[in-house]
Structures are given as structure tokens and as C-alpha cells.
């Protein structure tokens, strides 16, 4: 098992843990089914990383999608999807599996990582495209972003930091423009030579999301990292 296969297996585990934790917390699913699900997913991820990428990958993808379906069903129709249910590891894995099915056996391992990288690039390109389609460059207007930040302020150092930033419109606008630019640069992830630099910029973007918005998903960071690592 290589480092990147191991880290990608970990990303797949995180991808399944998120809906599993949500099902436990929001739908009261018992510890038994959750434990069995995590054990099966860990086994599938291990198989993926240990020389059975098609078998392990297909099983892991099926399990992650099953957990997501259960999570969607635990809320009124469309609630989870509308609020943003993103599965970068599952999406990249889908790219891997398609190539494993289509490419010649000797080239499939290398090309599968390329397909995964292409999918990762597309996720960021789509995020930037969605903003530009809705609002154009006006998306970076600081007022709405200041509101998003102040909603997330509160007691503690991080809450105070968010409030401090929210009250500085020039800084908020600059951060929003930078975030949009970095998302657009995510498209360069299709180019192998650019991946380390693009991954670094995108990891910085996620660090900003975590600090200012409270969204921290290790799955995104791992998916970026493993696809930027050399073979």
C-alpha cells in the first residue's frame, strides 16, 4: 500500500463517517448499525488500498452512497441536498473506477489517479462557475459576506475574529475575491505539474473556510493531498 493509497482510503472513511455521524445524531440510528457500517467501509477502503481497487472501490462507493441516501431520507425531501451535500472522495473514486474499467490493465493504475485529479479540478471549477453564473464578479460584494461572518461570530477567540473581520468591509471584499480566484485556479489541477501549488492554495482556502465559517472537512484536504502527491 502506497502513502497516497492509504491516505485516499482514509478520505473514503471520512466520506462515510460524515453521513454516519449525522444519522446517529439526527436520526437516532443505533450504535450497532453505525458500527457495522464503519467496519464494512473500513474493510472496503482497505481492499481499495491493498491491491483490489475495483472490488474495494466499488464497495466503498456503494456504502458511502447508501449512507448518504439514508441521511437524505432522515430530513424533509431535498433538505440535505439543497444545503450542500458534497462528496469529493466519492466523486474522485467514481473517476478512478471508470478508468479502471475502461483503460488497459497496465495503464489503469496511473490513469485512475489522473481521472480522480480531473474530478477534483471540476469540483472547484463548478463552485466558481456557480458563483459567477448567479452574480458575476458582484459575488464578492462584502455586504453579504459580512453577514455570513457575523452570523458565525459568538463567544471565544474565533467568534471574535469573525466579528472583527465582518466589521471590515474592505478586508471582507478582498477575501471574497481571493476565494473566488483560488476556486477558479482549482481548474489547473488537471495539469500534473501545477498540482502541488494548486493544492497548497486550495488547502489555504479550506483553512480560511474552517476559521471564518466553521466548515472543516478533512475529506477535502485528504482528497487534494493524495491527488497532488507524486506516484
Amino acid at each position: 500500500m502506497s502513502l497516497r493509497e492509504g491516505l485516499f482510503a482514509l478520505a473514503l472513511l471520512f466520506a462515510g463517517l460524515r453521513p454516519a455521524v449525522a444519522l446517529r445524531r439526527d436520526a437516532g440510528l443505533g450504535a450497532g448499525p453505525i458500527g457495522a457500517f464503519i467496519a464494512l467501509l473500513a474493510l472496503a477502503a482497505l481492499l481499495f488500498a491493498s491491491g483490489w481497487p475495483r472490488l474495494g472501490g466499488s464497495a466503498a462507493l456503494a456504502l458511502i452512497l447508501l449512507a448518504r441516501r439514508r441521511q437524505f431520507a432522515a430530513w424533509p425531501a431535498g433538505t440535505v441536498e439543497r444545503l450542500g451535500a458534497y462528496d469529493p472522495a466519492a466523486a474522485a473514486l467514481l473517476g478512478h473506477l471508470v478508468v479502471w474499467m475502461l483503460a488497459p490493465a497496465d495503464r489503469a493504475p496511473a490513469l485512475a489517479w489522473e481521472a480522480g485529479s480531473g474530478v477534483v479540478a471540476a469540483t472547484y471549477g463548478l463552485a466558481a462557475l456557480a458563483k459567477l453564473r448567479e452574480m458575476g464578479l458582484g459575488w464578492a460584494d462584502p455586504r453579504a459576506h459580512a453577514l455570513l461572518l457575523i452570523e458565525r461570530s459568538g463567544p471565544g477567540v474565533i467568534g471574535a475574529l469573525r466579528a472583527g473581520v465582518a466589521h471590515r468591509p474592505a478586508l471582507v471584499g478582498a477575501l471574497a475575491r481571493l476565494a473566488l480566484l483560488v476556486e477558479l485556479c482549482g481548474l489547473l489541477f488537471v495539469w500534473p505539474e501545477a498540482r502541488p501549488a494548486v493544492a497548497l492554495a486550495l488547502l489555504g482556502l479550506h483553512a480560511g473556510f474552517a476559521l471564518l465559517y466553521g466548515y472543516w472537512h478533512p475529506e477535502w484536504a485528504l482528497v487534494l493531498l493524495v491527488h497532488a502527491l507524486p506516484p
Partner: protein
Amino acid sequence: METLVAAVAALIYGALCLLLGERTPFSRFGMYARLQGYTQAARPWARVEGQLCAISALAAVAPVDLDPLRPGPYPCSQTWAALRDLRWIESHVGPGPFADRVELGLLWWSVDDQGRLCQRFEPRCATTGRRA
């Protein structure tokens, strides 16, 4: 060849996402893309004996109708958090009455054209309860 495979994968996945929408693992990744007219936001909040506190700071509340607090009619970028706040209340309902007066309502934030922010509490229902 590598770049070509990655570019083709990006194009196909991107096109499928635009076509299929929110069908995991496909998505348009449109979170926070639509911010037009977002000049106000609100989230369920509590006031216990005159002091504002987060919903999760309530240890118990007497039965109360939560419909006025349900997300949808008011702007809120943290719908998840609002839904969880309501579930928190539902799971901490006790027979009551309790010693403290509890007002449940919305904490509103707004931003004006100059980017100035302000905050106000709007009570929507009253009950009794106690803090954690």
C-alpha cells in the same frame, strides 16, 4: 496523456454535474453562490430572564410550539444550525413549569448599504425553562 485524461474526466464530471444537479456524488457545488439581496439573517435564539443565550445553553424547557421558529420564512445561511437548534429544544422538553422565564425567538442581523452591521432579538414564543 495524463493531462488529457484528467481534462476529459473534469469535462465529463462537470457536464454530468450540471446536467444531474444534486445527486451525490454529483453536485453543482453552488453553496453560497446565490447571495443576491442577502442583507438580513436570523437564527433561533433564546432569552432567559432577560439575558440572551444560545439554544444549546438551555438544559430544559416546558412544552412550547416551535412553528414560529422553523427555518424557511426568515433568511438564514445556517439552516442546518437552526434545524439542530429546534431538535435540541424538542429533545430537552420537560414537564415544567420551570423557575426561569424563557423567550424563544430570532436573533436578527442586518447590514446597510455602507456595510454597517447591527443585531436585534425578536421574541416569538414564551415558556419556562432553565439554563445548563
